[in-house]
């Protein structure tokens, strides 16, 4: 008698708990190092700050045990570690700026809010496929959020980019939320239309071209991203949206031609923007010749970041012992050079590998989940993190022109934290679905009367 034994995937929640504790321990050691280096004493609020972080992450972990027991065990610890390290660096810059500065406490508040929202998403969203119902609602909401900063009196320009809105005392970057909404829309829309997009079309000189009407959505996405670039002067977001859409389109249709068309449109749009807009030309000049006199006369922000990274070298100056505050936006767009200075190349590698791991877990989720919508959504969300890290880190390391984007989880900024914790929550939800065992399979039992081979089979050598 033989039975087919069901493979029972382990929940790995205990591993997650261990990693969460480890992440909190690393953050507290880093906090201690900053206190010792800057003030020469153990920081008084080490215990309270540590308790906050520990409490929040462990509570999050408990929610996962309760509502998503099979979720990926690495996502939460990585997000918590990055968030915690960001807090430490922001706290360190607070110390450098003097007693008035309280960015870190605001950041901690937003981290708490972000985790609470993420838990709510996990509690309320029992199955990620529910989101598919709101495909066109999310599109509308996404576009509204994207273009909200253009509303007079509501929108606000900061350093030329009009990507903020003010509501009473609060300011918010709606683009961060739009990023999630549009990813949901892309996933929902593409899973519906992928067959039409993938299979119908003419072949021109052996190169499969889509039908004109199928080209519509990509053109709309292109125009929307150009609008963001032109009207909001936000290079980073426009690159992010368009890249995200093209990647998801390719995954949905498996057709390289979409990427070629996307690249063509992107290249054309970028070149057009370069010809038409001063601020784009300026960015390109900073990228190619940051040390030239013309560049330095206009801005030395990139150069200061580079000098910070250079000062860090391989092993860094040590947390609290460098001068990251000499770089502009050291706590937001330039938080990566801040880490590179104080933790060195080694620390920067560790942080980049944490992101890579986060993205890898997201992609693994996409591979493991069984529905097309889930696959597309998980891929899109993972790719958005990877692309955003690439754009912002590539900007400060001169891989691509510098654009203003936040570094997920590290940068100071409430909307960014909220958005990224929500992304992690959705990924956790999908991964729970992907790793959960099949619902109550029928137990297959071989009948006892099955004929047994009369003659033993010859042994087969492997």
């Amino acid at each position, binding site marked *: 008698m033989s039975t087919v034994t069901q493979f029972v995937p382990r929940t790995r929640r205990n591993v997650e708990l261990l990693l969460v504790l480890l992440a909190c321990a690393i953050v507290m050691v880093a906090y201690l190092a900053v206190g010792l280096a800057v003030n020469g004493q153990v920081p008084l609020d080490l215990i309270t700050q540590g308790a906050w972080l520990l409490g929040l992450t462990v509570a999050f972990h408990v929610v996962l045990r309760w509502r998503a027991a099979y979720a990926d065990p690495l996502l939460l610890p990585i997000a918590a570690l990055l968030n915690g390290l960001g807090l430490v660096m922001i706290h360190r810059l607070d110390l450098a700026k003097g007693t008035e500065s309280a960015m870190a406490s605001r950041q901690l508040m937003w981290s708490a809010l972000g985790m609470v929202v993420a838990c709510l998403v996990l509690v309320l969203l029992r199955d990620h496929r529910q989101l598919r119902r709101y495909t066109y609602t999310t599109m509308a909401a996404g576009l509204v959020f994207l273009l909200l900063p253009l509303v007079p009196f509501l929108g606000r320009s900061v350093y030329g980019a009009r990507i903020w809105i003010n509501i009473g005392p609060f300011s918010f970057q709606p683009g961060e939320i739009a990023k999630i909404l549009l990813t949901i829309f892309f996933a929902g829309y593409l899973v519906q239309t992928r067959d039409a997009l993938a299979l119908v079309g003419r072949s021109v000189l052996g190169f499969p071209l889509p039908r004109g009407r199928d080209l519509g959505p990509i053109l709309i996405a292109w125009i929307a991203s150009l609008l963001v670039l032109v009207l909001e002067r936000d290079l980073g977001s426009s690159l992010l949206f368009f890249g995200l859409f093209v*990647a998801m389109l390719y995954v949905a249709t498996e057709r390289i031609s979409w990427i070629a068309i996307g690249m063509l449109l992107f290249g054309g749009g970028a070149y057009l923007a370069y010809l038409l807009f001063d601020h784009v030309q300026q960015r390109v000049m900073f990228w190619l010749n940051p040390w030239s006199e013309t560049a330095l006369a206009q801005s030395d922000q990139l150069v200061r970041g580079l000098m910070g990274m250079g*000062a860090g070298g391989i092993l860094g100056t040590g947390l609290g012992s460098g001068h990251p505050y000499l770089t502009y936006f050291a706590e937001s767009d330039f938080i990566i050079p801040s880490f*590179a200075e104080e933790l060195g*190349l080694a620390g920067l590698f560790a942080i980049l590998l944490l*992101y*890579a791991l986060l993205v890898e877990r997201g992609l693994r989720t996409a591979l493991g989940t069984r529905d097309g919508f889930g696959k597309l959504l998980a891929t899109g969300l993972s790719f958005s993190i990877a692309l955003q890290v690439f754009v912002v880190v590539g900007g400060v390391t001169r*891989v691509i022109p510098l654009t203003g984007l936040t570094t997920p989880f590290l940068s100071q900024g409430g909307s960014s934290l909220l958005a990224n914790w929500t992304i992690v929550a959705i990924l956790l939800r999908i991964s729970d679905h992907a790793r959960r065992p099949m619902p109550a399979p029928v137990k297959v039992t071989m009948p006892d009367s099955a004929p047994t081979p009369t003659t033993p089979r010859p042994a087969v050598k492997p």
Partner: protein
Amino acid sequence: MNNPIRRLALVMACMFASLLIASTWIQFFQAGELRDKPGNRRTLLATYSRERGSILVDGEAIARSEKVDDEFQYQRSYPGGPAYGHITGYYSFLYGSGGGLENSADELLTGDAPRLFFRRLGDLITARDPSGVNLELTIDPRAQKAAERGLGNQRGAVVALDPRSGAILAMVSHPEYDPNRLSGHDADEVTKAWNQLNKASGKPMINRAIGGDLYPPGSVFKVITAAAALSSGEYTEQSSLPGPAKLRLPQTNVDLPNAGGGSCNGGQTDLGLALERSCNTAFGWLGMQLGADAMREQARKFGFGQQLNMPMPVTPSSVPEQINEPQEALTAIGQYDVRVTPMQVAMVAAAVGNEGKLMKPYLIRQTRGADLDVLDQTRPEQLGRAVDKGTAATLTHMMERVVESGTGTRAQIDGVRVAGKSGTAEHGEGRNPHAWFMAFAPAQNPTIAVAVVVEDGGNAGSEAAGGRVSAPIARDVMKAVIAP
């Protein structure tokens, strides 16, 4: 859909790889270049945030670093003020270190000197911030004060040495400047002070004692000519020399006159008397007899042409090459193109006083660690022998006569025998002469040798002569050390 996801993953891997490569490029390969970029404030702050050693005179700091609550962490201050400005130099976050020990002993003050390697290793192990060493100077504050007061508002320089060791007892250059004005942390104030000091007509930032445009030595050079004569073995103190009122220079129609216009001892003098009265015609004649080579060689033995670091670099003094006979006559009395530093003149006096042995001048007596333990003690070093012992004794006797009854009577100190030589150096038509005096005392066993130069006659103007203007300053400096 899994295949395109895998391919997309590959794209993302490439994106991350490019970030890793770019950051490695910046932080590993480019790091050094980035650190050396002009205007890199981080590099500057890294230097300034270390505790720099103090400079001490007789146990009192004339330069020290104090902990302050700004981004530089330490503020450099100079309690010695302008009087020690040329010795300490300045340490400015805008203009770097310069002017004196701050620059030339920078490696010691920061603690980066190679010979401190093992100490730094210790600091690394005990996780202590590396700190610089303290410099204890050879300066005698009494001599320094006397020199400072003696020069007063006149331009010029004073150098005093201990002839036995070469230790520098005083070094003053006027006009002076206050290094505190350059070490402040207020960029505007510092820039203003810097521009003002660099534009000032008297060039206060130049240490005239060891550098600058150098001076013609005038008659103090006669000691070197006399030394060459005595060393040749053909002359003694009593050797007879012609001393007319005017000496016609050969191949020219130019006359070399005596300072007062009259003849020396009725036209015939001896070497001792010629020095005592500073007789131009006798020394001019002597110079032509000896020849340029002998004088140049004697000057070289006194240290001319040598690059010295004490540790500030001393501009080498020089006797011109390739000179003809009339130029030999002018060289013998310290005119024509002979150029000296006051430091070199003090070395000549010191060597004569030290039985002919020339000691290397030095300013740092000891280096001490942060806890004031002595790390290093400077050992006096002999540069060479200027003249033999007998010649030195004769020269000493001749210089004593200068102070006793010659042109240097104003250098006399009660109860102490002083040896000296005056100089009045012409340096251009219509300009008042530089007034020189060099001396050492007590004559038989000197503890101090001094050189004084007052530019353009100082307050005495056209009436200036070395014996009148500079001898009293030299006397006061020596007195401060010998008979306080």
